[in-house]
């Protein structure tokens, strides 16, 4: 029901603003790079030490010394730069990166996010996620509205161990665009063909619906 992962990425790409530096997490967020509007310039930062990240290399031109934070071979665009991890996180912590897009297991209506640990299951680590969410002025979470069991991931409060507190401003799911403020989720847009009632049913947290809720528009 609702958007594909590609469409979630496409919708998030509409949030990009001219001259923004952007950090994209692993998974759906990575796809956002494919949908940058033609009329704006943005640069992608990869926290392992790369600004101006370009597309995957042409087959045969991959370089073991040029990867992104997902350990995928990438390229660097003209005007890009390379640096160490301390300077990379100085960029992040110092709020020089205007937008962080990342996935989540749970988001709560106070802006809390959980995306790194499920008790009892194997913990792989938080990587750079805790630094990113604790620092970014502008965080968009990209995720499915519900988990595989059909349970809402848009919650009154997170049940999983937190990655960060009071930090998420916006959530784009397969069903909706939600803004977090006043300790609630404000419904901003619906996925094409998805009703407000369906979104309500899939949302455990407090959902505020003000006036007519428009459908998302894709070009």
């Amino acid at each position, binding site marked *: 029901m609702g958007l594909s992962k590609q469409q979630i990425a496409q919708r998030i790409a509409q949030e990009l603003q001219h001259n923004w530096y952007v950090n994209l997490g692993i998974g759906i967020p990575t796809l956002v790079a494919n949908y940058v509007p033609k009329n704006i310039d943005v640069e992608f930062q990869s926290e392992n030490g790369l600004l101006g990240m370009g597309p995957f290399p042409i087959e045969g031109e991959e370089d*073991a010394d040029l990867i992104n934070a997902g*350990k995928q071979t990438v390229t660097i665009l003209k005007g890009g730069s390379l640096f160490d991890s*301390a300077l990379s996180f100085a960029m992040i912590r110092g709020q020089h990166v205007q937008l962080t897009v990342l996935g989540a297991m749970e988001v709560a209506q106070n802006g809390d996010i959980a995306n790194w640990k499920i008790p009892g299951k*194997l913990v792989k680590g938080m990587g*750079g*996620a*805790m630094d990113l969410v604790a*620092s970014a002025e502008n965080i968009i979470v990209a995720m499915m509205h519900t988990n595989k069991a059909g349970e809402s991931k848009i919650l009154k409060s997170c049940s999983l161990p937190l990655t960060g507190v009071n930090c998420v401003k916006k959530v784009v799911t397969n069903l909706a665009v939600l803004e977090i403020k006043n300790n609630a989720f404000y419904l901003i847009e619906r996925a094409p063909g998805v009703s407000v009632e369906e979104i309500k049913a899939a949302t455990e947290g407090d959902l505020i619906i003000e006036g007519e809720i428009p459908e998302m528009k894709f070009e």
Partner: protein
Amino acid sequence: MINKVVKNAKEALQGVEDSMTFMLGGFGLCGIPENCISELVELGTKDLTCISNNAGVDDFGLGLLLKKRQIKKMISSYVGENDEFERQMLSGELDVELIPQGTLAERCRATGAGIPAFYTPAGYGTEVAEGKETREFNGKMYVLEHAFNPEFAMVKAWKGDTSGNLIFKGTARNFNPMMAMAGKITIAEVEELVEVGELDPNQIHTPGIFVQRIFQGTNYEKRIEQKTVTPKS
């Protein structure tokens, strides 16, 4: 000019003992000190504490040390991609301390820079901050984090000169420069060892003052963890 050259990894690792704490550069398999790791496997040194952003894969990088159960504790930000690691962690054989990646990088730098502690927002309100001092600055909450105290740091550079000056390549730089600053003894292995004067002093990433031993590495595999490509069109 001070000469830091040693013959090989064997000579570089003299003084390495059981139960020591090491820093090892690299992000995933990118920029890891392959020769030093092989030599540690060879030496069979045990009960090591390894500070490294990741823990390698089953058959490469720090995975090789894990397989031989030489590591007692890993201090990392992300440790996926490794079945043996998973088994040892779940069985309790291996102690794992997970640290936010930026905090890890900054703690490495602090170690080398004589900063015993600093405040960072990362992890505030999460279990990472449990038991740690927290504090408000300008209306935002921060966690106090401390420097490490490693005996050795092992880093991998692209080019180095006999005086220990290092230049890294691409994203293989990652944690290497900060870890190079942090070792009581820092060992640098390089793909190309050159004479002093061959590197532009304005382009050196790690000044030789931070490096105690340097050697020309051999047989670099430089494995790619996730080969992603754009098909030829």
